[in-house]
């Protein structure tokens, strides 16, 4: 099998995706992503130089509305699902260790 994506690539992508992977996961995903990307390589057979990309199947445009104040969910409701909410804030661990 072609090694389209290396172990280092997988570690780099995991960092981008904010995923802490275990050693077995790194190995598994390296193997599986290679197999999937190998399969996806068939797209290269198609000449798409003059083809416009489709982002949405149905043509849609920016949807605008008047900038008016409207009711929205209140503070308490917005915080109800927070794993650590306190006095109207979302509390997180410290941002930097240094």
């Amino acid at each position, binding site marked *: 099998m072609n090694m389209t*994506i290396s172990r280092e690539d997988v570690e780099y992508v995991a960092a981008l995706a904010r995923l*802490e992977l275990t050693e077995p996961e790194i190995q598994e995903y390296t193997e599986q992503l290679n*197999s999937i990307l190998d*399969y996806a390589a068939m797209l290269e057979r*198609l000449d798409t130089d003059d083809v*416009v990309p489709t982002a949405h199947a149905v043509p849609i445009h920016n949807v605008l*509305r008047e900038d008016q104040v409207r009711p929205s*969910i209140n503070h308490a409701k917005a915080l109800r699902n927070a794993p650590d909410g306190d006095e109207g804030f979302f509390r997180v661990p410290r941002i930097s260790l240094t």
Partner: protein
Amino acid sequence: MESVSIGKSVSEQHELLVHKDVSSTELTKAYIARIHSVDPDLQAYLTVLEDKALAQAAEIDRKIAHNEVLGALEGIPMALKDNMCTEGIRTSCASKMLESFIPPYNATVTDRLQAAGTILLGKVNMDEFAMGSSTENSYFAKTRNPWDLERVPGGSSGGAAVAVAADEASFSLGSDTGGSIRQPASFCGVVGMKPTYGAVSRLGLIAFASSLDQIGPFTKTVRDNALVLNAIAGYDPLDSTSVAYEKPDYTKFLVNNVKGLRIGIPREYYGEGIDPEVAKGIQAGIQTLIDLGAEVSECSLPHTEYAIPAYYLIATAEASSNLARYDGVRYGYRAEAEDVLGMFKQTRAEGFGPEVKRRIMLGTYALSSGYYDAYYLKAQKVRTLIKRDFDQAFEKFDVLLSPTAPTTAFKFGEKSADPLTMYLSDITTVPINLAGIPAISIPAGFVKGMPIGMQLMGKAFDEGTLYRVAYTFEQNTNHHTLKPSLSGEVLASGSR
């Protein structure tokens, strides 16, 4: 009376309610009893809302007692896939990440079904974040196929399909990103519609791939399906991808007549991987439609084989972006760590299951600097070619017809070891999402005791013609009247 009425269609139940033969409370109690009796085996439900459902039913019964006019869905008990937000009721996406998430608002479909007077029985199982084709990726439970408990119900809306197939709900809503309504409908022998992209609001549908996701109904009959779509479809200013189209009354299309309708059979949908027995069953269905006067001929959608790679690149790219929000800060699971970056990474490592992580990885890679053009952009261009295939076919045909899935329901574990094998089983459904068009799966017979589904594909916003063909087929066959027998009991009008 009660236990018989749970096997009836929505429209039959409506008549029973109107004529006071059954109350909504009796109907709701009968479904709850049914859930207690069969769901320990089937595991379709993640949450059952007994008290809330009975309170809603009592309200409808008061209306009936006062002889008020009853809407088509009023008093009818139903279930929602657990990725549709329900205010004050847990919406988990079958993920550890959202195990205790209580939405502060309703999805638009939840609101519309509530306004229509339906009774919410509960929330049903699915593949985690709707990623999968077997419901095996649920963090919570393994939903079983009522036709054979050793087999998967399909996915990702497995619970929603099973709830209807096993009479645990009169109808249900699922979502379909690459086949997640149609394939489980096919595997479980019920009717499942994926409407045109933009026909049903996605507000409050927890996003998987935003340019592909669409909500639609699972029902026992085609008429029921049209009734439910009537209630949920239509423009929603709160969804920027909702389309302000002229919504028809879909039941107006339910005529038993396909004379002169042009039906195309895309030959690429009968290629490698299609079980010959399934193809044979669909062939018999085609013959039925020919006998009823449809004009059927073969056609070609030449880029079909490219749909799987294009789909999996686009869907995972969108998913990687959509699922970035699960960071342990505002809602959902949080893992403890020393600093915030460690908290993000550990939260996502522990909160997501393997398939979700795999797709986030693939999508992040496809969008990453240096690979964007080769994968994501390329896939979007191929999407144009696939859409063009359909546009060209619909110049000559009113409807296209294929098997919904290449096989009948497979066994647990059969495809879960290799993700690519699982992905390839979506070949007959993913092109439709890429093109944004509507498609419906209807019961079309059985292979070795397992249901097969016939897929009808239509032009954008032409659900009506799909309902017409589906209804005509249904009126002239009896596949939809057969029911699985569970725990030794044989239900309703047919036997296998």
